[in-house]
Structures are given as structure tokens and as C-alpha cells.
């Protein structure tokens, strides 16, 4: 099928974040989506964001795209919806669905509460106050359909004639992203959840925190309201077979413990977990910090709870085979998720997708989202235990994959009308007061406000608006602005955070540049938050006065745009780099890939298979073949970057081949896939005794038939997770287990000495298999590594066992060290200096300051260009397995495709960008240093600062840093701020 024949719509089932992110990416690429929400309102079916949240943030912004794309006509949301039948072929599915529109259209509801007041049955409920808006629902059992609410609704948002309906939609592809299956009372019986009063899930606490952030009150015992002194945190999936754990679960426990200690330092906090499974970068730092501030971490083998008479909890736990008991006052459970068995079964029937042996959706090997049926993709927690960042990344991955089946883009943002030139006119300000469909009338004397406002200098027109946010009122108001003849507008309305686009549109349709308008929050700053009518009036007037003075100096600006090179440059020819190049080339992007060594494949090519037994070599060979075949990809081996100049869309890269030939390339985006190196070992006589191997050495020896040891001891975390390398390499535990299982088949005795086994997700299965097959496991203390002595025919290893403190001695023929990886620090440092992307102190690229923030930032604007068109992927970012490396590459491709195909792009932040007054600028460069977006540089010829409007997000850091007052933001110039603040104080 050629691309142009395909449909341009995608169906997304479920409200998991990967689905939301697919919608976002496809919307930006110009495709339509239909979202099936099984709930009656936006988050009735809870998804991971709000329920398995590691942080005490609300993350409501994850749903932001929804509003924007519904407004553009790119997204259609069906509520109370489900799939009934799937027919057709990939690229051309016919899906029968049922849906029931909500009675209250949330997009035009102004929350006036009149329907609630008028309902004789009390059937209208207000839900759920999670975000900054309230959702109005009708309880069908109580409702008599008397129609009073519909009559009184001032905006027509409430309509009672909604019925369940069935319809058939034609779509190119289907994305399955149902929400994760939470654990509840029955699943957590062992821990007494909802039976014992003082046992709570972490997610309960997080949800409770949303209005206030984490406070001491969140910790109060539910039985007597007392603040507990002894608190236990249990990572339940490690003790409960029906739950699955993602890599982040133990991090969440540690984070919670640290937060408790910060707020309540005298508390005694203990975490029960079997293994700590956080890896890499900042996660391990938090773990260390937890230990520093006195959080106790017990790596117990089994845990169960009993409630005592005073509602305290007795925790029984096993430590190296020995039973222990301890009492706690309060217990927090950090829970996992269950397999979505029902949902998988449903889709097995509907579209023949397969489930895997854990009850999750089956995913094709070496993909992150492909089900066994072409054109049907699955993302997020439906496919396995997932942390929040991967879930978001999978959304981008699906978006770039599903393009296979999509036709032409059909959505493009509407063009604004031409603006009136007001530069020669005198300042004439129009004040438009929204009455919120009469709701404000009894809360503020709006008529008097109108009279008083008209006395303010420069104000030539004051008018009361019925509303300002419904399509009809937007049209009317635009007309009013045009007819009044004003050239500056104050809209005294409500939340611009939610409705900014609508207000801006109103002004633009009124023929004025949006910089000539101010949006006051009459509702948020005056009407809703104060009691005294007289004082409200005064405050409203002073806000209008301040806005009028700000507008007096307003500078209109048409908005900037910039050219964008549609080419990509990939540094590094490992799995991640090759994957990025292949995916980009597939979408017609010209790619240049350079590799430092003389062959492609990177570190993964040295492994033969992974723990799942899949043939890595074959996969990498197929990648190499594709790279060589594809004419969109140019490959340079033995090449290194000499310099990178420019910014997103306009990079100039100079690199040399064989240290002789110099090449120059233009590119719009750069992928850094420098990978990692096997860490050098200096301990345990490595290199001095032929019977000491690293895991990789041993694999090689086995393959060459040179390995004959009859007993093997493996030591994990050699040189890892210490001060010099404070992160986990994430791959050595599974590599060790893979090799241990292989050796057991040959009858070799294997003992694994470890600190933590980091086998999150489904990899836990291999641990069980290893135990069954007789692999011996001994845990040692973090700060007490096993000691090795050489004997006549091998080694004698002594180790102090964790929990029992027993000194154990093991004799073996061969000693195998799991040494992990380290970043290619020299190359990364060089590239970091050239691109401005910071490095963590351990040498990996930092795309944001911490492990959790990384996830949160992904959800916020401006996602794609946050890293200035440079995407660190794979192990350049942090230690990763092959699949995880592939995911980072694919998601970065998904992100970059959004703008790679565009020849010109408007500045992402539109008209609000910082500027330089060249007459004042001395070219000192202070602004360049503080700019978080690399948006400023110094023009070498003129010696003046230059702003790339494309990168600027108008934070104002440069304005404050500028010693000569040359930097300014268009809508917050000095004189505007000073005049406004003076007016507020007046």
C-alpha cells in the first residue's frame, strides 16, 4: 500500500500516558486521533500518572494536549466508550465502538454551579477537583430528567438528550493503551490493606497530597490522628506474587522515606525490600542520601503484617532464613501493578493479539510496541510493568511507527487574520469585563466597576461581556473589539493557563496583535478568593490600572520564524545510533552516521544473546545490512567530530575521517549515541591470573571452547555503585544470571555473590529459574566486598553474609567479575562542550537535573526542542539494556520527526521572546551564560548579543543578568513592570 492511500486517523484505546503522548505527537504531525475513554470523565479510570506517582506533584499537564488538540479538531474524545468489533486490514481498520457523550460539555462549562442549585433531586455531582477545574456529572439514578438544569445552564454546556450510541469509525491503526490494573484490598491481604487502620498505599498519600504537597498531616495515623514515630515502608511487589514491579518502585520507596525524614526528622523510618532496583544517575544518589540521613533499609526475604491492639503493626520478616519481629506505628505500602489479563483476553477475541506468559500484551522481540497484528500497537503498562518515563517515550515510539500505515497529514493550525497597524495611533484602551454568564453579578458590583474603569487614563471604552470562552462569545467579543475602535485590549476574564488560546484568538480575530492585550484573572485573583465586595472592587480597579499602564508601553510583534534543515546527524554506530538512523531514513530523512571505530555494532555486538535468549547478533547484523543498503544513510567509519556550531535546525558539523579527510555537514538535529565502555578492572588480581574473567571474557572463552572450570564464583557490582561510579550498570545482573544458567547446564557449580539483584519486570523469572537449577546466591554488605585468595588449584573466596553476619568460604576454579560499564567520558566531554548539553558528574548526558524530574519535564512544554535539537540516546544517556536503548532512539526519532519535515518553523514561544537593544548592548556575554535554552550568542562581528527566537522561551533570565539594560522581554519591559507595580501600590 502506498502511503497516500491510507487513512489519516488513529484510534487510541485507553487513557494511559503512552496513548496521550501518541495523540500529542500525531496531532503535531498533522494526523487525527480518536480517544476512547472508558470513564465518564477525563480521569475516572485512573491511570498511572496519578496513582503510581513517585513525586508529590500533580502531573495534570499530562492531559494538557487533550484540550489543545480537541480545539484544533485533531482529537475526538469519546467517553463511556468501548470497542465492540474490529474488522478490516492494517491501514484500513473498521472499528465498531459504543460511546455516550457526557451531559456536561466541559469545554464550555463555566462552573457557575447554577445546575446544582436548581436540581430538585440533588443529582448533579461535582468531581473530582484533581485539576484546577471541576467536572460536573449527573447521577443517572437520581436524575428524573425534569430539564431544569438544561434550562438554567447559561452556556448550553448541559444537554440532557445524551444516549449511548454505536458507530463505526475507519482508522489507519489502533493503539492499545489501557490503564494499569491497580492492586486493592484482596491483592494486598497479606499486608492488611484496608483491614488494618494504619496501613496505607503510597498512592493514597500522594493523591491526598495534591492540594497541599506532602505535609505532616499526610502521615497522621488513621486510627487516632497521632503523628507516628516508627514508620515502615514496604515494597510489596517483591513479596507478593501477583504484583509486578517496574524499575522505579524501589526508588519511590526511597524517595518517600527521604521526604518523611525531611519533614519529620525524629521519625524512625525503615524500608523493607528484597532488592534495591534503582539504577543509574540520580537514583543512586537519593539512595545514598537516604542512608546518610538515617533511613534504615532491611533487605528481608519475606514480610507479613499483624495488627496489634493499639492499632500498631507487627512486622514479621525473614532475614537470611531467620525470623525477626518488630513493631511499627504506621505502614506505607509501595505497590506494583497487576497483569491486565481481562483486557488482554478482550483484545485476543476482538483482534487476535497475543498475550504473553505473564498475562500482559505480547510485544514482538526488539520492538517496544508492536503486537503480533500489524497496524495494532500497544503501549505503557499494558505491555509490562512500566515506569512513567518509558510510558511517555513509548508514546513517541508508537507515533513514529504507526506512520507506516498513515496517509497524508490532514490537520494544520489555522492562520491568524492580518493585524491592524496601530503604531501611528494614540493609545486607546478597551476594557472588557467578563460577567461569566451573570455569575459574577452578585459577587462583584460589575456595573460600578465599569463606571470606575472608564475613568482610568487611556481607557476609552468599557464594556461588560456575557462570557469570553464559548465559541459564540469569542466571535461576538472579537466583533466588539473591532467595532469599539480601540488599539489595546484588557480582557478581565478567568484563567489564562487554561483558556489563553481562546483569549488570544479573540484579540487576534479583533484585528490586534496579541501583545497588545492583557488578560486579567478577574475570577482567580478577585471574585473567587475574596469576600468583601467593596474591597474586591478596589482590587479589580487597581489590577486594571496596572494593566492599562503596562499596555501603554506595549510593543506589537509579528512573530518570528526560522528555516529548518531537514537532515539528521548521528554520532555513534551502536545499536541506538543505528536504530535512530534507520528510523529516520525510513521517513525520508537524510542521515549522516559517523562511527569512531572501524566497524558498526557497538558494545552490544560483542554479546551473543541476552537473558531472554534472543539472537542479538542476528538483530544487529540486520541493522548493519539496512544501514549499508539504505541510500538515505551516509556512513563514515573511523570518524570523529571536530566541531559543532549552530542550533536546532541549523547545525554545521565538521568531522574528520581517518584523521585526514575533513567533512562538513549541515543538519537540523543531532543524535548523540556515543554508547559506553566496559569498565576497566584493577581489583581481584584481574589480568594477573588467567582464571579470573569478566562476564564478557568468560562468554568469549565458552564460545571458543576454552572454558573448563568446574566451579565458578561470580562477584557482582565490582567497581560499581561506589563513590567513583555511583550508579548501577543495569545489565550485569541479567548477564550473570544468563551465564550462570548456561554453566549449570554443563554441570558447573555456580555461586553468585551480590548486593542487590536488579531484575525488575519479568526478569525476576530467571532468578527463580536459577534458584531452582541450583545456583547458589549469597548477599554481602554494601561496604564489605568478598575477599579472594589464590590457592593451588583455584581460589578461596570469603564473604560475610548479609543478615547472618556469618563468614562463609567458597572454593572455586574460576572467578568471574561483573564489572559493568562506564560512559565514554572523553568523547562525551568534548561533545558536551560543543553542544551545550550538560553531563552528569559521572559522564552520562544529563537531559534534566534528576531522575524524577526527567520524567516530569518530558510532559511539559517545550518538549521537543528542550535540548536544542540535540538528542542523547542509548547508553550515552544512562546504562540501559538493548531494548531500552532502542526505545530511547525511537522516541527521539518520534520527537524529531515532528519538526524535521518542516522547512520553516514559527518560534515555539510565538511572540513572547526576549530582545536586544543594540544601542545598549556591550557584548559582555552574561546573558549567554544564564540562558537555559542556549538561545543567546554574541555576534562576533558586531560584538552584540543575538537572540534566536526559535530557542527562546522568554523566561527573562537574560534580562536580569544584563548589566547594561539591553536585554528585555517584549511583554515585560522595565518601564512596563515599574509602571504596573507602582499602579498596584497606588
Amino acid at each position, binding site marked *: 500500500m502506498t502511503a497516500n492511500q491510507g487513512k489519516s486517523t488513529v484510534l487510541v484505546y485507553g487513557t494511559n500516558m503512552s496513548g496521550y503522548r501518541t495523540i500529542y505527537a500525531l496531532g503535531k504531525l498533522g494526523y487525527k486521533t480518536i480517544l476512547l475513554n472508558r470513564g465518564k470523565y477525563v480521569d475516572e479510570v485512573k491511570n498511572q500518572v496519578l496513582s503510581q506517582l513517585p513525586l508529590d*506533584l*500533580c502531573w*495534570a*499537564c499530562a492531559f494538557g494536549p487533550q484540550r489543545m488538540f480537541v480545539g484544533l479538531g485533531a482529537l475526538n474524545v469519546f467517553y463511556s466508550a468501548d470497542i465492540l468489533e474490529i474488522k478490516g486490514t492494517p491501514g484500513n481498520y473498521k472499528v465498531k465502538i459504543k460511546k455516550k457523550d457526557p451531559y456536561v460539555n466541559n469545554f464550555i462549562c463555566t462552573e457557575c454551579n447554577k445546575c446544582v442549585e436548581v436540581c430538585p433531586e440533588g443529582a448533579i455531582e461535582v468531581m473530582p*477537583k484533581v485539576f*484546577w*477545574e*471541576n467536572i460536573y456529572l449527573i447521577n443517572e439514578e437520581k436524575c428524573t430528567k425534569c430539564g431544569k438544569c438544561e434550562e438554567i445552564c447559561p452556556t448550553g454546556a448541559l444537554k440532557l438528550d445524551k444516549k449511548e450510541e454505536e458507530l463505526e469509525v475507519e482508522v489507519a491503526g489502533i493503539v492499545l493503551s489501557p490503564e494499569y490494573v491497580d492492586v486493592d484490598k484482596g491483592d494486598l491481604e497479606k499486608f492488611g490493606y484496608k483491614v488494618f487502620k494504619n496501613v496505607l498505599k503510597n498512592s493514597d498519600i500522594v493523591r491526598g497530597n*495534591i*492540594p*497541599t*504537597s506532602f505535609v505532616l498531616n499526610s502521615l497522621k495515623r488513621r486510627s487516632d490522628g497521632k503523628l507516628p514515630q516508627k514508620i515502615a515502608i514496604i515494597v510489596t511487589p517483591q513479596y507478593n506474587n501477583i504484583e509486578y514491579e517496574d524499575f522505579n518502585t524501589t526508588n519511590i520507596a526511597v524517595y518517600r522515606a527521604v521526604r518523611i525524614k525531611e519533614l519529620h526528622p525524629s521519625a524512625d523510618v525503615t524500608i523493607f525490600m528484597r532488592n534495591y532496583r534503582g539504577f543509574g544517575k540520580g537514583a543512586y544518589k537519593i539512595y545514598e542520601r537516604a542512608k546518610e540521613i538515617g533511613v534504615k533499609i532491611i533487605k528481608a526475604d519475606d514480610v507479613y503484617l499483624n495488627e496489634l491492639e493499639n492499632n500498631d503493626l507487627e512486622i514479621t520478616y525473614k532475614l537470611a532464613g531467620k525470623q525477626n519481629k518488630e513493631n511499627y506505628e504506621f505502614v506505607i505500602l509501595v505497590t506494583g501493578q497487576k497483569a491486565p489479563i481481562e483486557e488482554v483476553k478482550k483484545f485476543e477475541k476482538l483482534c487476535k493479539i497475543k498475550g504473553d506468559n505473564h498475562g500482559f500484551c505480547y510485544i514482538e522481540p526488539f520492538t517496544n510496541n508492536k503486537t503480533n497484528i500489524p497496524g495494532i500497537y500497544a503501549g505503557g503498562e499494558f505491555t509490562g510493568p512500566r515506569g512513567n518515563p518509558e510510558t511517555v517515550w513509548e508514546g513517541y515510539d508508537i507515533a513514529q511507527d504507526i506512520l507506516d500505515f498513515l496517509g497524508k497529514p490532514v490537520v494544520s493550525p489555522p492562520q491568524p487574520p492580518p493585524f491592524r497597524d496601530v503604531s501611528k495611533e494614540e493609545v486607546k484602551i478597551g476594557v472588557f469585563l467578563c460577567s461569566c454568564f451573570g455569575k459574577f453579578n452578585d459577587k462583584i458590583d460589575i456595573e460600578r466597576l465599569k463606571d470606575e474603569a472608564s475613568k482610568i487614563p487611556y481607557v476609552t471604552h468599557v464594556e461588560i461581556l456575557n462570557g469570553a470562552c464559548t465559541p459564540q462569545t469569542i466571535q461576538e467579543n472579537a466583533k466588539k473589539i473591532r467595532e469599539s475602535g480601540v488599539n489595546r485590549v484588557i480582557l478581565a476574564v478567568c*484563567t489564562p*493557563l*487554561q483558556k489563553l488560546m481562546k483569549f488570544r484568538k479573540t484579540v487576534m480575530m479583533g484585528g490586534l496583535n496579541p501583545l497588545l492585550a492583557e488578560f486579567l*484573572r478577574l*475570577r*482567580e*485573583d478577585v471574585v*473567587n*478568593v*475574596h*469576600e*468583601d465586595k467593596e*474591597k*474586591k472592587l*478596589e*482590587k479589580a480597579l*487597581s*489590577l486594571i490600572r*496596572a494593566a492599562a499602564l503596562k499596555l501603554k508601553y506595549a510593543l506589537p510583534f509579528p512573530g518570528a520564524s526560522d528555516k529548518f534543515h531537514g537532515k539528521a546527524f548521528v554520532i555513534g554506530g551502536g545499536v541506538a545510533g543505528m536504530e535512530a538512523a534507520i528510523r529516520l531514513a525510513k521517513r525520508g530523512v537524510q542521515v549522516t552516521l559517523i562511527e569512531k571505530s572501524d566497524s558498526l555494532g557497538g558494545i552490544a555486538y560483542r554479546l551473543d544473546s541476552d537473558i531472554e535468549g534472543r539472537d542479538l547478533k542476528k538483530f544487529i547484523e540486520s541493522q548493519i545490512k539496512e544501514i549499508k543498503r539504505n541510500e538515505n544513510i551516509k556512513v563514515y567509519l573511523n570518524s570523529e567530530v571536530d566541531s559543532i556550531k549552530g542550533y536546532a535546525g541549523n547545525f554545521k558539523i565538521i568531522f574528520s575521517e581517518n584523521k585526514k579527510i575533513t567533512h562538513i555537514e549541515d543538519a537540523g538535529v543531532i543524535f548523540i549515541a556515543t554508547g559506553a565502555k566496559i569498565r576497566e578492572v584493577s581489583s581481584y588480581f584481574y589480568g594477573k591470573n588467567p582464571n579470573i574473567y569478566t562476564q564478557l571474557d568468560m562468554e568469549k572463552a565458552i564460545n571458543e571452547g576454552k572454558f573448563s572450570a568446574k566451579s565458578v564464583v561470580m562477584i557482582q557490582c565490582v567497581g560499581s555503585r561506589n563513590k567513583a561510579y555511583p550508579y548501577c550498570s543495569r545489565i550485569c545482573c541479567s548477564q550473570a544470571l544468563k551465564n550462570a544458567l548456561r554453566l549449570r547446564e554443563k554441570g558447573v557449580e555456580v555461586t553468585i555473590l551480590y548486593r542487590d539483584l536488579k531484575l525488575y519486570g519479568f526478569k525476576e523469572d530467571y532468578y527463580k529459574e536459577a534458584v531452582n537449577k541450583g545456583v547458589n546466591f549469597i548477599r554481602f554488605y554494601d561496604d564489605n566486598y568478598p575477599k579472594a585468595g589464590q590457592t593451588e588449584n583455584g581460589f578461596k573466596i570469603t564473604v560475610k553474609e548479609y543478615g547472618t553476619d556469618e563468614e562463609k568460604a567458597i572454593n572455586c576454579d574460576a572467578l568471574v567479575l561483573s564489572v559493568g560499564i562506564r560512559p565514554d567520558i572523553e568523547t562525551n566531554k568534548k561533545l558536551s562542550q560543543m553542544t551545550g548539553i550538560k553531563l552528569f558528574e559521572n559522564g552520562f548526558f544529563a537531559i*534534566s*537535573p*534528576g531522575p524524577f*524530574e526527567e520524567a*516530569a519535564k518530558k510532559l*511539559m*512544554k517545550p518538549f521537543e526542542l528542550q535540548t536544542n535539537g540535540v538528542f542523547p540516546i542509548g547508553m550515552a544517556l544512562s546504562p540501559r539494556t538493548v531494548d531500552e536503548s532502542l526505545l530511547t532512539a525511537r522516541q527521539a526519532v518520534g520527537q524529531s520527526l515532528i519538526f524535521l519535515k518542516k522547512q520553516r518553523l514559527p518560534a515555539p514561544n510565538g511572540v*513572547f521572546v526576549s530582545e536586544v537593544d543594540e544601542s545598549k548592548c556591550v557584548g559582555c556575554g552574561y546573558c549567554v551564560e*544564564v540562558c*537555559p*535554552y542556549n538561545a543567546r550568542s554574541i555576534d562576533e562581528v558586531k560584538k552584540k548579543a543575538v537572540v534566536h527566537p526559535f530557542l527562546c*522561551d*522568554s*523566561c*527573562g*533570565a537574560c*534580562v*536580569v543578568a544584563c548589566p547594561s539594560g539591553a536585554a528585555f*522581554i517584549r511583554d*515585560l519591559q*522595565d518601564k512596563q*513592570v*515599574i509602571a*504596573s*507595580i*507602582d499602579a*498596584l*501600590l497606588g
Partner: protein
Amino acid sequence: MTWEPKIVYIMCSWCGSGGAESASAYGLKYPENIKPFRVWCTGGLDPAYILRAFLEGADGILISGCHPGDCHYDTGNYFARRRLAALKTILKTFGFDEDRVWLRWVGHSEGKRLVDTAIEFNEHIKKLGPNKI
């Protein structure tokens, strides 16, 4: 008439303003004499504006941005924190009560925290009395 302090509440466009919106959604109340002023980022707030506001008779200045690590612009709130610390030292050197400026993080969803902060600050300034400049 009893004296009411003149207080300007400077909020960043993302978290601070968001907090104010959450407060409104929850119907929480705070004193009317606290007047909001929006900047894009607390990191883009020139301390000169604060000095000027005191010269113009402000009794207190309250500033709210995103929690550390949570800045919409990555690091703006750290800039603000450092600048405020420097400004406070300067104010103190001049014999001006540096406690008339507060910087307190408020997240988008933390309407309650915003209102509590506003009320607390208002009481605090009332105790300090009018700005004598």
C-alpha cells in the same frame, strides 16, 4: 480606618499563578490587599523592581515560583533564590528589615499553600508595621 499593608505578590506564570488558580478552584480566601503581579519566571525578576516597590511604599513583597527542580525553565528559581539572598543582605546593610521580602515555592496544585502563605505574610507584615521609607 485600620491600616492595611500594601503587598505585591509576584508569581511566576507557571507554578505561582497555577497555585492562585487552584486556590480559586477550591474557593479559598485570602486578604484583598495582596495584589498579584505575574512575571514569566522568578528567575526573570530583577531585584531592582523590588527595591523600587519598597521606595514606592510597598510594605511587603511576596514571591512564589516553582519548587526547586521543578522550574518550567529548568533553573530560573535557583537564580531567584540566589538573587533574593543577595538582595536581603543588601537590604540588611541599609538597615531595612529584610524580612519584608519572602520567597516561597508554590506548586501549581498547591492552592492551599498559596493562600496560607498569603495570610501568614499579611499577618507578619502587620506585626512589622508600615514601611518607613
